[in-house]
């Protein structure tokens, strides 16, 4: 499908998108901007790769889209979480926390 990006990063992008939608419906550009700001541009992803990820999540039924008006009055596609999306966000977050904790324990261990 996508050029050989490691799976966990793939999953991470999905989780971040879900997180971006947690406060409410956003269009793709808004999600991109949110990612830039909240990650302080640490995670440099190509903006374009955001969209296939969004479409996949929609296909999986985690998010749904509806056309609406953007802040500037243009037609834009707004995504929001479905019930299953919320559940997925919780699951992904918990998993990430476990993963991060494990990695931290190893990497930050003294001696």
């Amino acid at each position, binding site marked *: 499908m996508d050029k050989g990006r490691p799976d966990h990063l793939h999953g991470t992008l999905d989780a971040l998108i879900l997180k971006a939608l947690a406060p409410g419906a956003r269009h*793709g*550009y808004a999600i991109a901007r949110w990612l830039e700001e909240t990650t302080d541009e640490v995670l440099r992803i*190509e*903006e374009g*790769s955001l*969209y*296939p990820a969004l479409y996949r999540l929609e*296909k999986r039924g985690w998010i749904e889209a509806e056309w609406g008006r*953007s802040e500037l009055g243009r037609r834009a596609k707004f995504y929001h979480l479905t019930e299953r999306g919320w559940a997925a966000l919780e699951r992904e977050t918990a998993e990430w926390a476990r993963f991060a904790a494990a990695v931290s324990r190893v990497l930050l261990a003294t001696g």
Partner: protein
Amino acid sequence: MAKRDEGGRPRVRGILKPSVGDEVEEELSFHVEMRVRELVAEGWSEADARAEALRRFGDLMRVKADCRRIAEERERSMRRMEFLAGLRQDVRYAFRQLMRSRAFAAAAVVMLALGIGATTAIFSVVDAVLLRSLPFPGAERLVIPETLNLENGDTWSVTYGDYLDWVDAGVFADVGLYQSVNVNISGGEASERVATALITGDFFAALGVAPVLGRLFQADDFVPGSPATAILSYGLWQRRFGGDRGIIGRSVRIAGVPTEVIAVLPRGLGFPRDVDLWLPLEVTPARRAIWERRDNFIFRSVARLAPGRTLEQTRSHLATLARQVERDHPDIRSNVTVTATPLGAWMVGAELSRALWLFLGAVVLVLLIGCVNVANLLLTRAAVRGRELAIRTALGAGRARIVRQLLTESVILALIGGAVGVAVAFWGVRVLVAAAPAEIPRLEEVALSPTALAFAAAVSLASAVLFGLAPALRASRGSPGAALGETSLRATAGAGTRRRRGALAAAELALSLVLLVAAGLVLRSFAQLRATDPGFETEGLLTFSLSLQGDRYDPDGVTASTFAELRRRMEAIPGIEKTAIVSSLPMGGGGFYLGRSFLAEGRPEPPQGEEVSGMWNVVSPDYFGTMRIPLLRGRDFSSADGAESTPVMIVNREFARRMFPDGDALGKRVRSWRDENLYREIVGIVGDVRFFGAGDEIRPLVYVPHPQNEWGSMVVVVRTAGDPMTVVGALRDAVRGLDPDLAVDDVQTMDQVFAASVAPRRFGSLLLGTFAGIAVVLAAIGIYGILSFGVTQRTREIGIRMALGARREDVLRMVVREAAVIALVGTVAGLAGALVVSRLLKSLLYQVSATDPVTFGGVVLLLIAVAVAASLAPARRAASVDPATTLRAE
């Protein structure tokens, strides 16, 4: 998901929604535009900002393509899920509806099961006999070369000389000859006479058969005087030798000669029919001299088309070679050519295959009548359910949705009908196989095959569309407002609806009329056939075949004296009155049938085709007395008619009439100049018999005494005082006492021979009669249902009419008149169909014209009676309508 389907929203959105590609385009360009705007706000120039935005975005084209692909996948899976969810809903709903009206569902299922079951059963026969290919590799390239008379289209066997021509000219890839004979196998517990094929070396090569055990014949096996070898069929190996694999190399007494078994063939070859033993055809110079005569048609042949050659090319090649034979032998081969028929078609025969297709056609008519009935039931229900459907429409269900819902019900009905129908077919196939005449080849292979089951499923679905589509389309039409108002406001059923239902009833009548006429014609033929006088007394006659084979019968006179001794011993058995032997039984009862051409003394040889020919019979004294064939003039043969005495013959009345149209045949001398060429004096004239079966024409026959034409393979006829079967044991003992190598074969009573000769027409009458019976019952139910529902719907109208002064008789007449119109239209349409169909029946008819007025008239009367009878109950109900209660009721 399911929640989203129920409202009208997704459908509406579906119409307005732009394509997936446009949406992706719009979304991505929005992103880029927003970025550009932001960069411009940061102070970038418009052009630089756009370049930067695109750079940051990455590979726009690829992203676009990815998004599009994912979105399309998503749409597809959503549509699929929506469809499945809808289907599940429809199925659940349909079951609920059917459960709610169980009587309706049961009636529909029974009618469909009958139709589908009967159709599937007949199809199983058609499939096994006509469609399934024979068990030979490349069976479609196997043909039977045959001699063809160009004047009358008759075909028969071939000569050895012609066979050699084909081999020399390379007409075929492989071509074999065979001769069918009956041979005694003895040794072990009991001797047995089995159907045997004497074959040439290429026979199995042509068929492409390899043995399951052992080796096929090699050149050595055909050399005269070489050790005798034999090949067994799988069936004989299992039956007589218990499937013992050690049989190869073992010696078995065959035709009184120790013979080595060299091979066992695969199971179920089926060609030549019923053959259990194969022996090499030994070609001696003396035999060859006789065989090569171009009018000695004593061989059957089977061949495989040469690679790249079509059947047509092969036929024209055969015809070219036959023309040369005709030039060389104009006296015996004028107007005679050679053709080739595909093996499958040859085995079944044109008549049988036409009959089978006809039966399938007939049973499809029954199914059609069933479908019409179910369609009618559905229309009735649709009228009752008008309100329910109107409400659903009002609640936003589209027309397509309602049609789908109704069709789902139909398909479910049809599938249940089909499932029950398969059970009917399972039983029907057994009945068919048990009742079918033995002439039908491959009958033992008839079964509910996967093909037949697939056929049943296809027929079920097709009938669902047939009976379901029209009612569904009709029911879904009309605005909800009208439909909701209708039931309470309308006093009469629409004239259009009534006409349509009337047309359905008329169609049913027409279809049953076609079937009834077909059944009637065949049934009358069968009755005529049963009533024919065979020319002798069939009752109290037992027959069996016997072949005297082995060295001991080689000396002249031994065969005749052995049969004479056998007759003496048999006549000593209590219960046996008279016995005789004959080379071929009348009524097609078995033996060796031989036709010859005759010439009276003093007449010139006539041109070919104008000679008097007759069937050649070899008989013992007392044959006519035993059979009770009347001796009209002269005398019977006696023991004085021996090998050395004056050659004599007895002829039947037909032969005497043809050979001596204006004189007394008795005392005249006649020869069969192409074969025996010996003048025989006619010493007696006997009555005619039906020679090849009950329906056969009267043929000229000649009889010669056995001692003067000493054949070893004969049929024995025994007249008994009581039940013929009671003497069978004693007869077997008598034969065994004479020679333990001999085997009694084909034991049957003459009544059984008679029954077998009328079996095909009996089978035809049975099938068509059953179908026609079902059809009439279904049609009667259909007409009753239609009229009865019409009365229910028009109760209010009838009430008003009566309130306005109509009398009961008027109302009665109104309903019966409707039935009469239906009957009239149905009869006229049916007669037209029957006239077409009855012409296809010709081969099944006997002494009944295809337009037999008795049958046609009787059937029309019967159907009108059925229509009137079906209308009586609804009419009486209509007449008993009480205007006061009806009008108050609504």
